[in-house]
Every structure is written in structure tokens, then in C-alpha cells.
């Protein structure tokens, strides 16, 4: 195996799934990391350890199991705060995922702060989860939804943001820090600065960025920040919404129920303190605890090293894939501006056919619209194929992938 910035063999041995074969005898090559990442044994063990040894509900009971479970759950909150560098642990809200985090903001903040003729600005490379909640909100309020366009390099056209901000009607700008289709890394700090100069709130969809690079929320200085555990080695069903305390304090709860209350009377209720005001009902305790192990795992490697490894892999993959006859790549070739996500088409092979053919060689890639149909329209394609990398991927796997692409190309006579 090649020399790497990280100890790849030791990392791979932590992921049980990488030992399995697919289609009888093909080693699994997992290049669908932008959809969800694989889980190391440490995460799987943390979840089963909770169920084996201290399964209990949190925050209420006084018995020992409850205390252990509460401590483990709350420890994750501290780790998240440290991981994304925020000062106040009570600003970390556990949700089901990025989608729920964005919906929470649209519901609890949006309905109070966005009124008729106001503008919410999103971008053409958003995931449906950062478009549809804003369509619901703006339609309900008679407000407008506007889009920052994407240029031919796959980058946001920020002049358009300036024009929207100049109207004085913009209440929120929401964008992904890294595109799940093109891998483009947004100029987040520049966008946020521009918005704040005009007193406009900013939401950062960090679902694709936090798993793959060091992110410092204080430095970003945004207002809302959302990401998911399952794309960063953690379990499904856990996500994080971070928001500034003053905003959270003035927002109405998203869900009503247990744990989010201070006092409940027949007709009135007072809310619990942050973050519990936004965590109604028994949360996903086991998976939050599993997420803790994922954060430890990434911390141990170091997010700078994760990024470095992915840059090296992506650079290599882009070089190799560019040489495949008939390939069409989307997004910028500049590695400083992109992450480890490569979207492409090969001749007139439909992405679903391509994904099926290379799956026969054990290579799992994604094909389709990637929940980004607005971007597909902009690129004027119905679908693309997408390979996305993570810490356990290797150049040798990329070689198999390229050979497989060439096999598909020959099959379709391109």
C-alpha cells in the first residue's frame, strides 16, 4: 500500500465492513461516502456497550444506570462543542440529522422572522434539504426564495449575493459549506461577512464539510450550523444544530413534549433551558453515545490529516479519470477549492447503468440526482455518477475503479 499521510492499514482494520466481499468474491470498494460513511468498530462497540451495560433513559431517573447514560450522552455534547470549536455547550442541539436541523430553523426561527415580501437566499448547489424547507416557509409567508447561481467551474456566483443583499429585504442566507455533488468548498467566511454587514442571518449546511475538514464555527461566525453524525463515521439518526444562544433563546420550540419543559400547567407551559428546550422526548441516546466514539476516532487522526489524505486521493483520482475516454467531469479541478467528491458522466452511458456495471467489480458509487435536482437542471443533465472518498480509501481502490470504468466504456463501445 502507498505511503500515506495517515496509517491507512491500521485505519482499514478498524472497519469490519471493509473485510466483506460483494458479488461473491470482489472486495468491497466503498466510494459512496458523501451519502453515508462506514462505521469503525469503536462506534459499533460504544452503541452495543450502552445497550449491554447501561441502557436507561436520561435526565430524569436517579438510579445508577440513568446517571451513567446521562453522563455519556452529555459528554458527547461537550465533544461536539470542542470538535467544531464553539464556546457554549448549551448551543449544541441534538437532532435526527442535518435535514431536521434545517427544518427546525425554518420552523422555529423562520416563522417568527420571515414575513411577506422578505427574501430567503439559498444556492443552486443545495441538497433538497436546504431548499424544500425554505420553499415551505416562503410560500406560507408570501416571502421570496432566491438562488445564488453556480458558474461553469462549479463555484457560487457571489455577485448575485451582493445584488440580493442590496435589496434590503433578505432575512436569511443559507448555503452548504461543501457541495454534495460537485465537492465545491464555498467561500463561507466571505459570504457570512457580507451578510453580517447587512444584518442578515446565515445558516451553514455543514453535512459534507465537517466530516472532511477542520471547521471552526467561531472563526466562521455564522448564526446557524447543521451537520449529521452518519457522514462522519457515526450512526444514522443523529445530527447537530448549533445556533447562537441569543437566537435559540428567542425561538419557539420545534417539538413539544417531555424534557423540553420547565413547568406544565393545563393551558400554559414554560420552556426548559437550552439545549433541552429543543430536545423534546427521549432522544436517540444510543446513537449519540456512538457518535461520541466517532468524534474520538476523527480527533485521534486529526481533521487536517483527514483532509490531506482526501486531497491526495482526489488529486490522483482526477488525474486518472481525466484520461478515461468520453469522461465528462463536473466541478473545479482546483483542489484548494474542492473536497473528495467527483461527479461525472461517461459518454452516453446512463449513470444507473454505469453504477450497476462497476458495482459488479465491487465498486460502490452513487448515481442519480443526489437530491440536488436544481443543480442537475443547471448542469443540464438528468443525473450524474458520483465517487466520494474517506479516510479508509486508497489509490489501489481508485485503480480498480478506473479499470472498471474502462470496462463499462468498452461494453458500451465509447
Amino acid at each position, binding site marked *: 500500500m502507498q505511503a500515506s499521510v495517515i496509517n491507512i492499514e491500521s485505519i482499514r482494520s478498524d472497519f469490519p465492513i471493509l473485510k466483506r466481499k460483494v458479488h461473491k468474491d470482489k472486495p468491497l470498494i466503498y466510494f459512496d461516502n458523501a451519502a453515508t460513511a462506514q462505521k469503525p468498530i469503536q462506534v459499533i462497540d460504544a452503541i452495543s456497550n450502552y445497550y449491554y451495560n447501561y441502557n436507561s433513559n436520561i435526565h430524569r431517573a436517579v438510579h445508577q444506570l440513568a446517571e451513567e447514560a446521562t453522563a455519556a450522552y452529555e459528554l458527547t455534547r461537550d465533544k461536539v462543542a470542542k470538535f467544531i470549536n464553539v464556546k457554549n455547550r448549551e448551543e449544541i442541539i441534538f437532532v435526527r440529522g442535518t435535514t431536521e436541523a434545517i427544518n427546525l430553523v425554518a420552523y422555529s426561527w423562520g416563522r417568527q422572522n420571515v414575513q411577506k415580501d422578505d427574501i430567503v437566499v439559498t444556492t443552486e448547489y443545495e441538497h433538497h434539504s436546504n431548499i424544500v424547507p425554505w420553499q415551505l416557509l416562503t410560500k406560507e409567508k408570501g416571502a421570496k426564495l432566491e438562488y445564488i447561481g453556480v458558474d461553469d467551474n462549479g463555484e457560487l456566483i457571489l455577485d448575485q449575493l451582493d445584488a440580493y443583499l442590496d435589496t434590503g429585504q433578505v432575512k436569511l442566507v443559507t448555503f452548504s459549506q461543501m457541495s454534495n455533488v460537485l465537492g465545491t468548498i464555498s467561500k463561507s467566511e466571505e459570504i457570512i461577512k457580507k451578510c453580517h454587514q447587512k444584518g442578515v442571518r446565515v445558516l451553514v449546511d455543514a453535512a459534507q464539510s465537517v466530516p472532511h475538514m477542520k471547521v471552526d464555527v467561531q472563526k466562521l461566525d455564522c448564526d446557524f450550523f447543521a451537520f449529521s453524525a452518519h457522514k462522519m463515521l457515526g450512526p444514522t439518526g443523529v445530527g447537530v444544530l448549533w445556533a447562537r444562544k441569543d437566537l435559540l433563546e428567542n425561538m419557539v420550540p420545534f417539538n413539544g413534549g417531555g424534557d423540553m419543559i420547565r413547568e406544565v400547567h393545563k393551558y400554559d407551559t414554560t420552556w426548559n433551558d437550552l439545549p433541552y428546550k429543543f430536545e423534546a422526548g427521549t432522544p436517540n441516546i444510543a446513537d449519540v453515545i456512538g457518535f461520541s466514539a466517532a468524534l474520538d476516532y476523527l480527533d485521534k487522526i486529526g481533521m487536517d490529516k483527514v483532509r490531506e489524505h482526501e486531497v491526495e486521493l482526489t488529486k490522483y483520482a482526477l488525474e486518472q479519470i481525466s484520461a478515461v475516454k468520453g469522461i465528462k467531469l463536473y466541478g473545479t479541478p482546483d483542489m484548494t477549492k474542492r473536497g473528495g467528491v467527483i461527479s461525472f458522466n461517461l459518454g452516453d*452511458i*446512463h*449513470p*444507473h*447503468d454505469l453504477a*450497476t*456495471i462497476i458495482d*459488479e467489480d465491487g465498486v460502490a458509487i452513487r*448515481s*442519480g*440526482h443526489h437530491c440536488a435536482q436544481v443543480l442537475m437542471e443547471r448542469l443540464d443533465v*438528468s*443525473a450524474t455518477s458520483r465517487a466520494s472518498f474517506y479516510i479508509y480509501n486508497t489509490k489501489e481502490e481508485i485503480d480498480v475503479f478506473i479499470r472498471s470504468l474502462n470496462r463499462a466504456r468498452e*461494453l*458500451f*463501445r465509447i
Partner: protein
Amino acid sequence: MYREIILDYYRNPRNYGKIENPDISKKDSNPLCGDELEMHINLKDNTVSDVKFTGKGCAISQASASMLTELIMGKDFEFVKKLTKEDILENLGLHDLGPARIKCALLSLKVLKYGIYSYVSEKLKDTASADKIKEEASGLF
């Protein structure tokens, strides 16, 4: 899966196109992958006198549609009404499709069945048969 015959039908689809004022006309899509398909059929003396399709999508969906048009051309309407999922897979020579890809192969049959349903219920006013066909169509995937 991608045998020569599938690729040939994908690249050179038979019966591709539209019919002016067809007796049966139906369009559907697969929301998961975005495959689209439209079928036009003319009937004469209770047999399929002409059939055409248009669409965009993967090789499996497009080849399947083209091969289905050939299968039903000139056939008795009763035969067409009775076509099953197994008939289509047999016709394609594909038997080991997974749950995601089987939808590609069956999209054309689904469009055909819904087309027949509309025809039977609206033009023939045969509610009982129409309901049965609709049930078959919705049960495909």
C-alpha cells in the same frame, strides 16, 4: 446483465416515436432515478395495430420498453392485457435484477398497464376489468 441485445435496443430502439391521436396514450416516470417513458398504442379489430414509445433513461428501461413494443405489436388485446412481470423479464432475458433495477425493467409494463386501464375504464366503460388492471399496475413496484 448488459448483454449485446440490451445494448443494441438501447442504441437502436425499435418503435421509437409517437402516434397522432392514439387510442391509448400514457406517460409515467420513476421518481427514484428520473427515467421517463411514454407509450402510444392504436387498436384495430381488438389487436395492436401500431405501438410507439418515447423516453429517456437507462439502457435497461429503454431496451425493455422497445422490446415490449415488439412483443405486443400485432397481438390480440386480451394477450396484452394479461402480460405479467415474469413475461417481461423473460422477454428481456433478465432474471436476477435487484430491487432498484427491476423498476427500470418494469417501467414500460407499468406504463402499458396504466394506459390499458384508462382505455378500458374511459372508452370501454368496463369498470370491473379496469379495476383489476389498475391493481396489477400499482402492484408492479
